[in-house]
């Protein structure tokens, strides 16, 4: 039965270097998907943030320490990692997973193990709605990322300017992967696209395991819309490359999480050319004074720019530290209470959580002046910001075979 004592010992050994330090460190557990591009930036970004804080003398003299876990994109692994973080490594807060399925699996555990937990990337509205519905049992859980509906609204708003006003488009087909986060996304698309002036002709949901997108694109094309409105995160490279190889004469516009990552161009071998995507942060968009410095610091340290979840995690660690400082303790209730009062200028913009009572309790507040986000387009290997006007640094351009009106 040594197999039970061993992990304990091993983790101890793992923590020894810091155990020697003077002040009791504040431990933050980071559970992420190290092998998925979208999740790979989470742990490094947290580390970076911790180093910054410690460089400034920590929180009231106490150093921040990151304990990282890989959940292999599996909910049960994540639950195990969570238990380990809390019971074994005694972390005071957890930042966990960009995948909604996993975030939802962890949500009950935040209460069971009485630990503040923040997701740096899971977007589904189900998360804050659950908190609103049963605040008593979910109050330790925070969504460090805008909700899917917020994402959808931003796509609609930008589409109104860029597609309807500018290009005179009228119809669209929604194409999204079958996942937790896209349910509210699609629902919102259905509402807000018509308001924006784009009539949804059809709505295609496909399995995350889909590899052959030819039929999907052909179905869409047969409907003769002006644009494809996307909602993809687990897939990205394959639809994009096939979109390009088949020269589908329709722009792809919307949420495509993988496309936010700078390596996307390489992964698609340039297939991303012309793709327009919504993002809450990008290496060269100054959403706040902190955005670009962080991106640069990250690249200096790790040799590549962070994925979107990197920015959110970076902020999360910072505002956890800030909350600990304000709460003057790491007691879970105090910390949660402090977090609810968060008002922090992060790489994403101004961070505030929606208060209890709001249908989206503990979700990020979005909109001008807060977390705002941008629309970017891949052009010749670079992400060009095309919306909002105040941040735009380029015009939309499309591959020759895509014919847009006007």
């Amino acid at each position, binding site marked *: 039965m040594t197999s039970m004592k061993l992990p304990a010992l091993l983790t101890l050994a793992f923590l020894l270097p810091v155990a020697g330090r003077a002040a009791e460190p504040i431990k933050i557990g980071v559970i992420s998907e190290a092998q998925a591009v979208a999740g790979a930036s989470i742990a490094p970004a947290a580390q970076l943030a911790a180093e910054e804080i410690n460089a400034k003398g920590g929180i009231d003299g106490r150093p921040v320490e990151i304990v990282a876990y890989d959940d292999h994109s599996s909910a049960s692994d994540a639950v195990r990692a969570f238990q380990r973080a809390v019971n074994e490594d005694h972390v005071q807060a957890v930042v966990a997973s960009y995948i909604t399925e996993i975030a939802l699996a962890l949500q009950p555990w935040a209460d069971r193990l009485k630990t503040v937990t923040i997701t740096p990337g899971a977007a589904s509205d189900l998360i804050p709605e659950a908190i609103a519905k049963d605040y008593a049992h979910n109050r330790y859980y925070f969504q460090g990322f805008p909700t899917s509906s917020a994402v959808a609204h931003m796509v609609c708003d930008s589409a109104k300017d860029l597609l309807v006003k500018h290009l005179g488009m009228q119809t669209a087909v929604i194409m999204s992967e079958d996942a937790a986060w896209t349910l509210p996304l699609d629902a919102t698309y259905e509402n807000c696209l018509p308001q924006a002036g784009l009539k949804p002709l059809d709505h295609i949901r496909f*399995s995350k395991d889909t*590899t052959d997108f030819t*039929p999907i694109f052909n*179905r869409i094309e047969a409907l003769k819309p002006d644009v494809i409105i996307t909602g993809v995160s687990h897939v990205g490279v*394959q639809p994009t490359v096939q979109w390009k190889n088949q020269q589908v004469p329709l722009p792809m516009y919307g949420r495509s999480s993988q496309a936010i990552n700078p390596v996307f161009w390489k992964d698609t*071998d340039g297939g991303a050319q012309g793709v327009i995507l919504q993002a809450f942060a990008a290496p060269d968009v100054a959403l706040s004074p902190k955005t670009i410095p962080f991106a640069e610091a990250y690249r200096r340290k790790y040799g590549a720019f962070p994925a979107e979840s990197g920015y959110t995690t970076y902020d999360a660690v910072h505002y956890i530290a800030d909350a600990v400082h304000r709460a003057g303790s790491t007691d879970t209730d105090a910390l949660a209470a402090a977090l609810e009062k968060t008002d922090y200028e992060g790489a994403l913009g101004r961070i505030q959580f929606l208060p209890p009572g709001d249908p989206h309790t503990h979700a990020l507040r979005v909109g001008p002046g807060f977390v705002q986000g941008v629309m970017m387009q891949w052009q010749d290997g670079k992400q060009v910001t095309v919306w909002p006007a105040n941040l735009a640094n380029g015009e939309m351009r499309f591959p020759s075979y895509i014919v847009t009106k006007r």
Partner: protein
Amino acid sequence: MLALQILIDGFAIGALYALGATGFTLIFGVSGVLNLCHGALMVAAAVAAWAAHTEGAMNSLASAAVGLAVSVALALATFRLVVRPIQRSPAVRAEEREIFILTATLLWGILIQEAIASLFTSNAKTVPPLIGGVTLLLGVRIPRNEILTAILCWAVIGVLWLWVNRTRTGKAVLAASMNSRGVILLGIDLSRIHVAVWAVYGLLAGVAGVLLGMFLGVSSYSVGPLTASAFSIVVLGGLGSVYGSIVAAYAVGYLETMTAYLVSPAYRFIPALLLLVTVMYVRPHGLLGRR
């Protein structure tokens, strides 16, 4: 229009499936091994080709070659390090060899998959197509590379056929698949034949993998599904029957494509699976006999 679309896409997909399954069935026929790291070999080949292109800045042909080299090497490694030790192990009784080889190749496949994932992330990768662009065929727009893919698959299958039916080694391989003792009686070295077969198998899996990487793209997650689909197709066609595999490959390819077009992409795989179950009940030993 739609019919033609289905016809063409189904043909390309079917050709890919056929190529993938051919190697799988060849190995089973000759050495009686159900190689459950099949998908891993395909993905490894594709990812290697991708890496050679993006990291090594090679042109698409050279990088494809790298992919093939990798899968051949891995196939031989599978034989030497995993399959043969078990076949020769005195501790494994004959009737248990099957499950042991299944388990071992499965694990080996996981090893390869994990290696790929931690070296190149689990993100999907696409191999640069040999030729870009599209052609219009009766109003249907088809990527040139899709057509090339189908042609190449058939070319390779054709070459395989020639190898098996026209060359001495090929003949011996075929003979071994029917009666290994007969081959030994004629003084033909069976172990050398096995090595040859595994190398050829690696080549087939590699070509299939690289082409798949160009056509649809692969990720380390594709390993399981690719193995499963090859396994299904081969069993559906009748184990050890190359012709059966090809027929089955097209049956599955078209069934999937039609479902995707006519019903919904979400239900793509279900009819094929149901077909498989029915066949297992009606014709427990697959559609076609050996060879």
